[in-house]
């Protein structure tokens, strides 16, 4: 599935990029998370789809804007 991926903070640093378009073999957030879990090692992260935080069982759709978000540090 074609996804527009956005990386932030420590994740962008580790992956050496802030965005990319990828065709990934995933259809749910759970699958996406396990796909990235090994690349991101110990960094905890949440996932936003089209700028909304997504739950584990949410489905992904073609061309979704997907963001991998490390822990928040606002304030």
């Amino acid at each position, binding site marked *: 599935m074609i996804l527009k991926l956005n990386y932030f903070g420590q994740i962008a640093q580790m992956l050496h990029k802030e965005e990319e378009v990828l065709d990934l073999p995933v259809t749910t957030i759970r699958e996406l998370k396990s796909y990235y879990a090994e690349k991101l090692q110990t960094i905890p992260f949440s996932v936003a789809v089209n700028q909304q935080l997504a739950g584990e069982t949410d489905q992904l759709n073609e061309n979704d804007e997907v963001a991998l978000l490390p822990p*928040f540090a606002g304030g």
Partner: protein
Amino acid sequence: MADKKVKNVFVEGPITPEKIANSIAHHQVKTNIGAHDIFLGQVRADVIEGKTVQAIDYSAYEEMANKVFHEIRESAFDKFDLTCMHIYHSKGLVKTGEICLFVFTSSAHRKEAMEACRYLVEEIKAKVPIFGKEVFEDASFQWKVNQ
């Protein structure tokens, strides 16, 4: 006075005392206000393994962050009887001693202003996709995580 338009909450660099003073001054025409509460987040010179934080470099998923700020604002207007509410957050470099977050609530009475301010600060810390790199004096850094 809930406002349906998504505002830009981000300010480049630190939030200045002058900006805060201007914001207070602008509320002096609103004579139904009896109480303001202002929360300011200031960058701390924490010492971590012998190295001192010099600044935090803030980044954000800005478009989503502004939407989340908007939702938090709307929910605060629903929960509390507020006259006004303003939120500003820095992006980019904010040095120790400088201000990175400015939350400003106003109401007829103190209880609402204070409870809303506290609610907003907790919501912002928990829900807004903002990231902070704590930069040390030797230019090394670590990623900040909210408690």
